[in-house]
């Protein structure tokens, strides 16, 4: 206790440093112990959820569930050990939040599988294949990737030098589905896939992160350029016309995605992230205003030109009115029926009918949670996201380099932005755009990309709290307190 604080981490850290494990005498508490306890709590929560599903679905209860829970804990314990080894000062709440969300997602997908397999049975549809084993496989693969990212990028600043490469690869990934024939890229009207023989991937999910890295690197290096202004209008400092390049580029890419891939969600997400990063880098509200104007203009033109956009807007205004139209409000209405039926406390896990909503385990998983866990459960899930994103944001605030700040802020914002776009769509706050819910939804690409995102966040948070001297905490044998020397501590600057 009372470990000396050697660098500018907020004072709160020291107070919260409850169960501290592996704490070096000269560094701040690593708080890996907290992380492990929280992970165990997450695994317990997920196990309990799984048990509820099985009880309500009248599956035979057995020790099997306990084994699943322990296996889940074991998988995350490996992740924990990796963090302990390669990012010992990382934020202790980020990984547990992810573990809860991913676990709850798995339980929900399993639960929808049960319902769908029954439907398939009565329809004698032999094509049905359960999504849960695939999602479990993707979780394991994602965690392996997560370990890889932590292992190979021991300093997030390395990424800065790959900025342009990331940007190029990101744009290419984004463009691949648009360039490919529909047979290789289109599923349910959205041309966002890359269908390989064994699996389909959504390159847009990865493009999101790569573009984030590019923009962070680009904005940090060209920051002064964007700060230059030539005149003030309405108290806002307007940027020079020639500096509008990047935002116009981002806008163009977003519109391209929207038009060529019919993917409103990714388009909105990327544009929102770019806007946010421009604002953070330049501290100018004018960028946000210009961006918003461009966005509104783009939306208006898209609405005028494309029937699928008009349909989405009509479905948003009144999904019950367009219920029977092809591509109409049926799905949104079913989602709302589910949330409405769930009410305050929900029907209970496994006791509702989330399978009546099409795409219940991907885009509409929020509706399934709203139905079975109710308003209370949905709120709790949203708050877990808030904790996750705010911990990321906190790391961004604490990290010392501009690139880290921009990247960390962007990654944290990306989580909430994506959440807003999809949950807002499901709950009819904004038009439905079709995008996955991070960590919850079924889908390998989404899971892989978001685990990379989390690995980067952990890397940044590790950098934020890591003491200056030495990249690893020195291991000093603990001497009895009476024999210890007095240590001189430098006051933080």
């Amino acid at each position: 206790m009372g470990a000396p604080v050697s660098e500018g981490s907020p004072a709160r850290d020291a107070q919260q440093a409850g169960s501290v494990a592996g704490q070096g005498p000269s560094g701040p508490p690593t708080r890996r112990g907290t992380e492990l306890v929280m992970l165990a709590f997450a695994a317990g929560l997920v196990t309990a959820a799984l048990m509820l599903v099985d009880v309500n679905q009248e599956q035979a209860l057995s020790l099997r569930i306990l084994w699943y829970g322990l296996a889940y804990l074991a998988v995350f314990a490996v992740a924990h050990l990796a963090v302990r080894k390669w990012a010992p000062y990382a934020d202790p709440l980020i990984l547990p939040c992810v573990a809860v969300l991913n676990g709850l997602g798995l339980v929900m997908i399993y639960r929808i599988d049960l319902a769908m397999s029954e439907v398939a049975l009565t329809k004698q549809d032999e094509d049905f294949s359960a999504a849960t084993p695939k999602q479990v496989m993707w979780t394991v693969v994602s965690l392996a990737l997560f370990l890889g990212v932590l292992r190979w990028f021991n300093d997030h600043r390395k990424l800065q030098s790959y900025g342009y490469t990331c940007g190029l690869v990101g744009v290419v990934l984004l463009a691949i589905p648009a360039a490919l024939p529909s047979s290789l890229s289109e599923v349910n009207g959205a041309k966002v896939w890359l269908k390989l023989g064994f699996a389909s991937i959504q390159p847009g999910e990865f493009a999101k992160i790569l573009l984030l890295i590019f923009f962070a690197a680009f904005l940090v290096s060209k920051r002064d350029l964007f700060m230059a202004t030539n005149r003030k209008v309405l108290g806002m400092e307007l940027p020079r016309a020639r500096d509008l390049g990047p935002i116009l580029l981002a806008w163009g890419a977003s519109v391209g995605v929207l038009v060529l891939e019919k993917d409103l969600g990714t388009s909105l997400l990327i544009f929102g992230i770019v806007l946010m990063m421009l604002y953070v880098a330049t501290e100018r509200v004018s960028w946000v205003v210009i961006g918003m104007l461009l966005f509104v203009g783009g939306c208006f033109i898209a609405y005028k030109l494309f029937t699928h956009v008009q349909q989405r807007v009509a479905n948003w205004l009144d999904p019950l009115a367009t219920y029977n139209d092809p591509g109409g409000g049926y799905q949104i209405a079913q989602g709302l029926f589910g949330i409405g039926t769930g009410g305050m406390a929900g029907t209970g896990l496994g006791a509702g009918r989330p399978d009546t909503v099409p795409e219940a385990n991907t885009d509409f998983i929020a509706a399934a949670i709203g139905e079975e866990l109710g308003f209370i459960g949905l709120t709790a899930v949203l708050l877990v996201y808030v904790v996750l994103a705010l911990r990321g944001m906190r790391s961004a605030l604490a990290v010392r380099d501009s690139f880290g700040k921009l990247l960390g802020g962007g990654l944290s914002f990306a989580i909430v932005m994506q959440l807003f776009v999809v949950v807002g769509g499901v709950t009819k706050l904004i038009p439905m755009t079709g995008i996955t819910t991070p960590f919850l939804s079924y889908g390998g690409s989404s899971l892989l990309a978001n685990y990379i995102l989390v690995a980067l966040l952990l890397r940044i948070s590790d950098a934020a709290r890591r003491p200056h001297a030495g990249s690893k905490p020195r291991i000093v044998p603990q001497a009895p307190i009476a024999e210890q020397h007095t240590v001189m501590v430098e006051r933080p600057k």
Partner: protein
Amino acid sequence: MNTPLRKVGLAMLVMVLLLLANTTYLEVFKADEYRADPRNQRVLLEEYARQRGQIVSQENGQVLASVKSTNDRLKYQRVYANGPLYAPVTGFYSVIYGSKGIERADDEILNGSDDRLFVRRLSDLITGRDPRGGNVVVTINPKVQQTAYKALTDRGYRGAVVALNPKTGEILGMVTTPSYDPNTLASHTRDDQVKAWTKYTKDPANPMLDRAIQGVYAPGSTFKLVIASAALEDGRDKNTQLMAANGVDVISGQPCDPSDGSTRCLSNYGGSHCGSGQTASMETAIELSCNTAFADLSHQLGEDKVRDMASKYGIGDQDLEIPMPVETSCIGPRNDGQCMDVVDAPALYQTGIGQRDVGLTPLQNAMIAATIANGGDRMRPQLVEKILAADLTTISDFEPENLGQVISQGNAGQLRDMMLKSEQHSCANGCYGDNKVAIASKTGTAEKGVDPKKTPPFAWYVGFAPADNPQVAVAVVVESREVTATGGKVSGDIGRMTMYAALGGS
């Protein structure tokens, strides 16, 4: 950069708050609307998973419809003890195709959502028992139902029988053949349901048509009871002399010779003369079922009197429910509100013998016989005897409902006497039961099709027994397959067997 980052952090909080505010709005203001939307299957599926109440017969409480536990998600499967026999009463209850019959009409009772079951539902909630539906006791007498069904199916007939208690309006029997098995439609295997539904709906015999309340048939000579009622109420009696000619021209109203083949000449059965006299009494005309007499009588009475009497008997009533909705019976064309219009003068002659546009349901015709049996007071036909909660306490009991006096008691007596003669005439060559009980009846053989002489007719029989203290009234209709079929030959014994069953005989 920290200041804008903090603002972005704040913006993130605002975004999530917006989501929460919107979800709150959904839960507080819209949830009820979404929950109650008919397109929200969840409520329906929940209903299917609830233990549905039973449908039970009045006498000796035979269970007609109940549930058995299953190990699938719907938990309970509907089971019909004697499916095809009681199908017109119970109807069916299908996950895919909805429901029919009592299953549909009293659905809220059976599924337990009826307000009258509220208190019990509340206690179920507190005690943690699964809510169960209420039970419906129907007025059906299984013996009557079985006898009528057997009588029709033994002969391979397509038709319907309705038996009423004339004093209360209780429906003692309601049979339709061919019938269908509601068990197959209640199957939890989707394919079985689809297969059964396709089979029944594609069957040209139309087994899912509840002929008793949904089938509309020209009543033929049985409609003479309505014309006679109008004439008696108009001041005539059973001795009033009516036209006895072999045929009557439906345009001029003059006697004509049916053998000359004119389509304008409406003739008696077989083209014969009515009785032996120059004219025939109303009694003789009923006994021998003379067409010319009643065609001419209908013309004498005029459209208004015929229509008034018909509507007093309940014809043209669009809202009759037993509680299933009953198809409207009409004397006019079945379109555009012309149900009670006699379209022209020839039609008025034909209406007198229950032809042309006249169409009655078997239930309507049974109600006419029952009204005469009940001294002219028409009782509302009802199929539900009692409604019981899941714990078998009575929630509502049977109450007979008088729908008004159609004819005076005296006139009802005169009609009964005429119907007694008619029964004796029908039984001249012997009939079922050998007149052990005095039966009052009227037969009818309704022509149909473009070439009536070559198309098998609808064979009718309506009646009640015992004549002096009626306990049962019946209507039988058979969609006969032979041109020579008549009501007396085809339907009479089916009606008599049904009545004897109701009276407790063999």
